[in-house]
C-alpha cells in the first residue's frame, strides 16, 4: 500500500535526510510533501491526501505542538498518524505531544536505521 507523507521541519537538511531514510527503507511512498512550519503543513493538509505526518517541534510561525493542537480539533486530521522528530527529549514535551495524539517520537540525533524502524511501526498503523 502506497502512502502520502508530509515532512514538517524548518531545516531543509533534515527534510532531505528524512526523505532519504524513507526511500532507503523501501517504504512505498507515493508523494512526499514538505512544509517549513505548521502553517505550511496545515495548508498542505487541507488540500492534499496525506496519510502520515512527520513533524519537528521548534519551527517559526507555528510549532509542531501547535500543529498537533490544530489537527486534534479537526475530525479528519485528528485521525492521521503523526510522528514527532525533534531534538527535544524532555519528558514534559514527550508527554504533551503524546497527549495531543502523536503516535511516535524519535529524538534527534538519530541513526538512520532507528528512524527507519520507527517509521515502519508508524506505517503499519497508517
Amino acid at each position, binding site marked *: 500500500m502506497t502512502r502520502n507523507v508530509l515532512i514538517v521541519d*524548518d*531545516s*531543509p*537538511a*533534515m527534510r*532531505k*535526510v528524512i526523505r*532519504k531514510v524513507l526511500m532507503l527503507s523501501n517504504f512505498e511512498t507515493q508523494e512526499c510533501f514538505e512544509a517549513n512550519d505548521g502553517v505550511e503543513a496545515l495548508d498542505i493538509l487541507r488540500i492534499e491526501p496525506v496519510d502520515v505526518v512527520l513533524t519537528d517541534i*521548534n*519551527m*517559526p510561525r507555528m*510549532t509542531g505542538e501547535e500543529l498537533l493542537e490544530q489537527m486534534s480539533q479537526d475530525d479528519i486530521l485528528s485521525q492521521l498518524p503523526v510522528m514527532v522528530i*525533534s*531534538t*527535544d*527529549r*524532555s*519528558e*514534559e*514535551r514527550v508527554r*504533551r505531544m503524546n497527549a495531543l495524539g502523536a503516535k511516535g517520537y524519535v*529524538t*534527534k*540525533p*538519530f*541513526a538512520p536505521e532507528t528512524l527507519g524502524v520507527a517509521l515502519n511501526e508508524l506505517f503499519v498503523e497508517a
Partner: protein
Amino acid sequence: MSVEQISATLQTAMTEVLESMCFILPGEPVDMATFAGEPWMEHTLTFHGPEEGRFGIRAPRPVAVRIASDFLGEDPVDLSEQQVGEVMNELANMVCGNVLGHCYHDHAFALTSPTVMHPVSQEEGAQFDWEEGVLVAWVKTY
C-alpha cells in the same frame, strides 16, 4: 544551573550528534595550520525555557563542507554553499537540543531557528577534535 555546568555537556553532545548523524568519532587533533586562511562558519540560536541563553557552533569552512557531506551522504563537490549552511544550522539545533536534554530532563525548551553569525565570535566552550577537523561549541546564559 551554572553556565559552566551546561558547558560541561557540550563535548558529550557534540560526540553524540557527530557520531549518530555524521559518522565522525573523536580523534587526534588536526594541525590547525591546515585551515590557515580559511574562513570559519558560525551558526547560533537562542533557547528559551527554564534557562534563557544563546548557543553557537563554528568550524572552518572545509570542515563544515565535510560535515555536510557526511550528514547528507553526498559528495562534497555536489553541495552548494546554502546546503552547507543548512546542515550547520541543523547541527547547531541538534547539539543545543542535546545539551539542554542532558541538563534539564523534564523541562521543554523553545529553540529559535539558527542563523549565521558574522563576523565569527571569539566565544569559547568546548572543542571537538578529530583527524580531519574541528568543531567548537559554546553556550551563554542571560
